[in-house]
């Protein structure tokens, strides 16, 4: 317990310096600014804004990036509530009731409760990370390559189960992602694989380039397909602070949402995505009058938004303790950390405690900043949302180009975002969801490395994965999950959750 407080105070000592406070503020502000644009999710936002952190020291850069991440998340919710265009999967649920509230002239309250719920969830999640960080890091030390490999397999199975639409397509996407990660020089033998002899492919495909193409450029192309029907609320935003009745209705959903989101966020394989859905379904089940849902029920905003933010934050845990990015956003964080010379994993906490605890403390600071900047700035976001898409997307396009060029100073990188953008567009047209592919790509290299090591230790015997108890347990969970997801009755329920 004493450790817990001394660690947190060390963290706050770092996070509350004037410079780092400023960086967290700036990060939240630009993150929201970009994240609020329709069709720009957190992944594209972070990839676009990554270069602006290059000149900073590692701690400052990570604090700013975390700020950008929260800002982008909150910006997505703002867009969902005001325009009914969810920027990413997690704010789909918010759009359901949030936008209805906005149409009833209660946009301010919806945004307010979302911000307050998120802040509460963020505070709890920060404490959870601080409490679990140290023990989980110790757990990581007993993990060998065999366990790591099985854990990642489990993560990928999670991603398959959580993906929308056909399971077969999700599996195919994961496999393609892992396959893409093997492009480039083989680390063990130094031989080039599938590079077409092109020198810029020798280091493999850059993750930021792939993510920007699939999530930034493809999204632009997809939006251009549809004639614009943006439904920006015309009603007044209304008062921002929820009144006593609102609070009374929403404090329980916030508590439950925080708990669900925080628990799911820890799971590898993008469990955070499930949080808002689970919270919404639960609130609907618990409500006395479930017909209010979908017509502007405040619980339908408060719960999922809290779950969303709690999950967004606890998904840092697998990254910081085990070095495994549980989703694409965290994979970008890995990229950012590596640029600053930090390799994520259990050793960060022991080798670099000021950075580790400073970043955790700054998560709370970032949540506070969001509360402070977002509520007064709502008017500005509304104005930004009224800019027609035909002017927005060329600007987004140029920011993407500049952003990706600044990472490696390679014109080929810029061309590749166009190429992957088209691939992403094709995938969407053929009904594939790109998110599992990205996760497969992220984990691919780590998986190959650990698979190799595990097999060397076991002298080429695949049985090692079921002989070692921890590994066997993880694989069993993965197998059970997959079977459950394939059962017809559960499948139906799963489809309902996602179509709701």
């Amino acid at each position: 317990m004493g450790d817990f407080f001394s660690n947190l105070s060390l963290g706050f000592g770092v996070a509350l310096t004037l410079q780092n406070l400023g960086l967290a503020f700036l990060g939240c502000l630009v993150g929201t600014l970009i994240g609020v644009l329709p069709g720009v999710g957190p992944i594209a936002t972070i990839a676009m804004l990554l270069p602006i952190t290059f000149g900073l020291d590692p701690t400052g850069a990570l604090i700013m990036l975390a700020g950008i991440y929260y800002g982008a998340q909150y910006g997505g919710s703002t867009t969902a509530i005001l325009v009914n265009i969810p920027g990413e999967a997690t704010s789909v649920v918010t759009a359901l009731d949030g936008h209805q509230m906005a149409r009833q002239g209660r946009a301010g309250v919806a945004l307010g409760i979302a911000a307050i719920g998120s802040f509460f969830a963020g505070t709890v999640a920060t404490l959870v990370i601080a409490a679990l960080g140290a023990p989980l890091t110790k757990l990581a030390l007993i993990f060998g390559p065999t366990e790591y490999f099985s854990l990642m397999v489990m993560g990928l199975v999670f991603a398959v189960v959580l993906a929308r639409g056909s399971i077969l397509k999700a599996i195919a996407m994961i496999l393609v992602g892992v396959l893409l990660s093997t492009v480039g020089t083989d680390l063990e033998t130094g031989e080039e694989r599938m590079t077409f002899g092109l020198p810029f492919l020798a280091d493999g495909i850059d993750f930021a380039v792939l993510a920007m193409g699939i999530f930034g450029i493809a999204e632009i192309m997809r939006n251009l397909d549809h004639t614009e029907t943006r439904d920006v609320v015309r009603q007044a935003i209304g008062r921002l602070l929820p009144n006593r009745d609102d609070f009374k209705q929403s404090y329980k959903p916030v508590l439950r949402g925080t708990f669900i989101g925080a628990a799911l966020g820890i799971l590898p394989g993008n469990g955070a995505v499930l949080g808002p859905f689970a919270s919404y379904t639960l609130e609907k089940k618990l409500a006395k009058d479930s017909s209010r849902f979908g017509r502007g029920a405040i619980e339908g905003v408060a719960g999922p938004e809290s779950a969303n933010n709690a999950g967004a934050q606890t998904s840092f845990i697998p990254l910081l303790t085990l070095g495994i990015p549980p989703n694409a956003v965290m994979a970008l964080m890995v990229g950012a950390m590596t640029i600053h010379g930090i390799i994520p994993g259990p050793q960060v906490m022991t080798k670099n405690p000021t950075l580790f605890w400073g970043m955790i403390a700054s998560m709370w600071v970032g949540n506070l900043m969001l509360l402070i900047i977002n509520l007064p700035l709502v008017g500005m976001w509304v104005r930004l949302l009224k800019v027609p898409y035909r002017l927005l997307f060329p600007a987004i396009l140029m920011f993407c180009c500049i952003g990706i060029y600044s990472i490696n100073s390679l014109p080929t990188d810029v061309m590749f975002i166009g190429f992957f953008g088209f691939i992403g567009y094709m995938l969407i047209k053929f009904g594939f969801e790109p998110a599992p592919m990205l996760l497969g790509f992220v984990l691919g290299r780590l998986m190959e490395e650990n698979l190799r090591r595990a097999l060397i230790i076991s002298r080429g015997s695949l049985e090692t994965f079921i002989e070692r108890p921890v590994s066997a347990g993880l694989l069993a969970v993965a197998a059970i999950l997959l079977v459950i997801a394939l059962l017809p009755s559960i499948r139906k329920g799963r489809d309902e959750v996602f179509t709701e």
Partner: protein
Amino acid sequence: MSTLHEGAGPDRPDGPVRAPQNVAGGLVLVALAALALWLTRDLDQGTLNAMGPAMLPRWLAIAVGLSGLALLASAFIKHGDALERWNLRGPVFVIGGIVAFALTIRPFSFGALTTPGLGMLFAGPLAIIIGGYATNEARLRDLVILSLSLTPFCMILFGDLLNLPIPVFPQALTGLFPSNWSQKEVLRATAAIMAVVAVIVFLATRGRRRGSIDVADHSGRI
């Protein structure tokens, strides 16, 4: 959002193919698997004890191919979505804008040809104007004003404030300014000139088509 589905919606396709989208998806996966197998054909697979470079890619490719085949097979058994209509205007101009940016940001040579490195000063507006035509609602005037105001903003932000190593303008430009000016001063002056030009263009063309187009009310709902 659903205007596109009109033609392909409720009527189920006749013939043996019941899910055209899955046929296309399956074919793409099989093709990808074949490509990967062909690319790794000369590489050593090794043994489980000492995996060679081709082990994982090859088995992954086989798995991808099998998923593709399964998807293909399912397309003849289960009903599924029809293929959406393709509109190539978007992708073509968006990619065009991106390629224009990539080719002009710094000298880029392929074979004997080398493109001039023009820096953000030209690459930015090129990306905005070419990319902007991806929608049929594009208007040159708006795109020109947008590029003339956003580019100097980015030049100042990335080149001046953040000091990123991104080429901002061609070297020849420095010749136009007094020789004792530093790079930063040239950058700021150029950005200022562009911003002023943006304002002039905005003011000069403002009155011309007033009445017929109401920019603020374009989406019809605000």
